[in-house]
């Protein structure tokens, strides 16, 4: 097993060239999968016998919630990588990913509120799961605020990495909060490892939508990282050549 890919990943130039090839493709695949999954879910999946048509917001809510958590997990891993190996790409990743994650958490919160009104009869409950997504949203905003406030780039990198790693502690709390506090919220409706409790033709579009969201976010993140790389590496020869040859 070679570790070359890991070292390559640390080089902004290599990542820029690699991601230029893939970003658009990944984004388009994501867009397509999202449209198929959400379209299938909203238009053709069977009606739920308990919740009727309202359950269909699940095709937006669940992918956003899954991504909000996954993005944070990836931030934590990147933070760890930066603290241990000082890899240059890690803070670029954190900076690019944090706003995307914040948006996902916001979508999950909003769609959850809209879903909660017809099912629970209230926009908001102080349920552990909802609250921890709210906390997740605040954590994202904290990382964004930190990076915008600290002017010294090295310090901002270090600080964002540390907060990301600390925030990882919050993820298990989100994950297991459903069991810790027995509340109104239904147990997690989506799991890859367990047999799905919903029928196949409800579950499959959800799976496609989740995969679509992952690809969308990956594509978006790559684009954001590319511009961040150009900004940070603006003094290097390859960026100068690139801008001279291709324009901005």
């Amino acid at each position: 097993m070679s570790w070359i890919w890991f070292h390559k990943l640390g080089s902004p130039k290599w990542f820029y060239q690699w991601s230029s090839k893939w970003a658009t493709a990944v984004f388009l695949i994501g867009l397509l999968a999202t449209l198929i999954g959400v379209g299938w879910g909203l238009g053709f999946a069977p009606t739920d016998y308990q919740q009727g048509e309202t359950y269909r917001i699940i095709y937006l809510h669940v992918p956003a919630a899954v991504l909000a958590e996954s993005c944070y997990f990836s931030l934590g891993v990147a933070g760890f990588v930066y603290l241990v190996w000082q890899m240059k790409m890690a803070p670029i990743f954190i900076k690019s990913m944090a706003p995307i994650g914040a948006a996902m958490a916001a979508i999950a919160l909003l769609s959850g509120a809209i879903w909660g009104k017809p099912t629970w009869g209230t926009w908001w409950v102080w349920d552990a799961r909802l609250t921890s997504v709210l906390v997740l949203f605040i954590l994202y905003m904290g990382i964004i605020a930190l990076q915008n406030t600290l002017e010294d780039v090295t310090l901002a990198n270090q600080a964002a990495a540390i907060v990301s790693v600390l925030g990882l502690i919050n993820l298990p709390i989100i994950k297991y909060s459903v069991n810790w506090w027995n509340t109104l919220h239904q147990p997690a409706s989506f799991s890859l490892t367990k047999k799905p409790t919903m029928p196949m033709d409800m579950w499959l579009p959800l799976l496609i939508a989740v995969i679509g969201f992952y690809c969308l976010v990956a594509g978006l993140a790559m684009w954001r990282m590319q511009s961040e790389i150009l900004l940070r590496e603006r003094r290097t020869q390859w960026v100068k050549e690139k801008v001279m040859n291709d324009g901005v």
Partner: protein
Amino acid sequence: MTYLSFFKAECLTLFRSKQRVVNALLFFVLVVVLFPLGIDPSADFLAPAAGGIIWCAAALSVVVSIESLYKESYADGTLTQLVVSGLSLPWLILIKVGVYWLAMMLPLLLLTPVFAQMLFLPSDSLLVLLATLLIGTPGLFLIGSIGAALTVSLKQGAMLMVLLILPFYFPIIIFSTAAIKAIQFGLPYGGLLALLAAISLLALVVAPVMTSLCIKASVR
């Protein structure tokens, strides 16, 4: 410099600037007073809420006052001297946070029974409240120390520091108030105290290292 001479200097410094601790305690008192004033002064509301009120006030006063923990040493260059002293920075940080914890928590623990009485907290809950404060607040101080180090180079860092650090206090506050509720309903609370202890121990291991990373990045 030795660990002992640093400890002595910290105690002296804190004793000379005792107004900082007094301010934090006054802030604690004010937040507690806000609840009966702002919501409801009746025993029906206050008795079940007392534990939560005291915990929120304690958490707020810790996060607000610990923000300046490293500010002065950053400004006068002693923080740099700590980094280059050849001693282990995480241990120095632990000493600093420990001294500050003692200085602030001893009076706060003495104040708590008075405020528990004023908020009509049942007397059997008081012991649990004191236990949660004793076990949980080291976590507050240690996590707060990370935030203080993160924002030490900022002139207007207080708001950012509160925004960053307060979410990490949530689990501590939740478990503490859950333990106080548990005793009010006659339920076992030992497990919750153990969880609190676990969080504080985790913070004890992680926070000094994280704080020293932030300080090293800040003093350059």
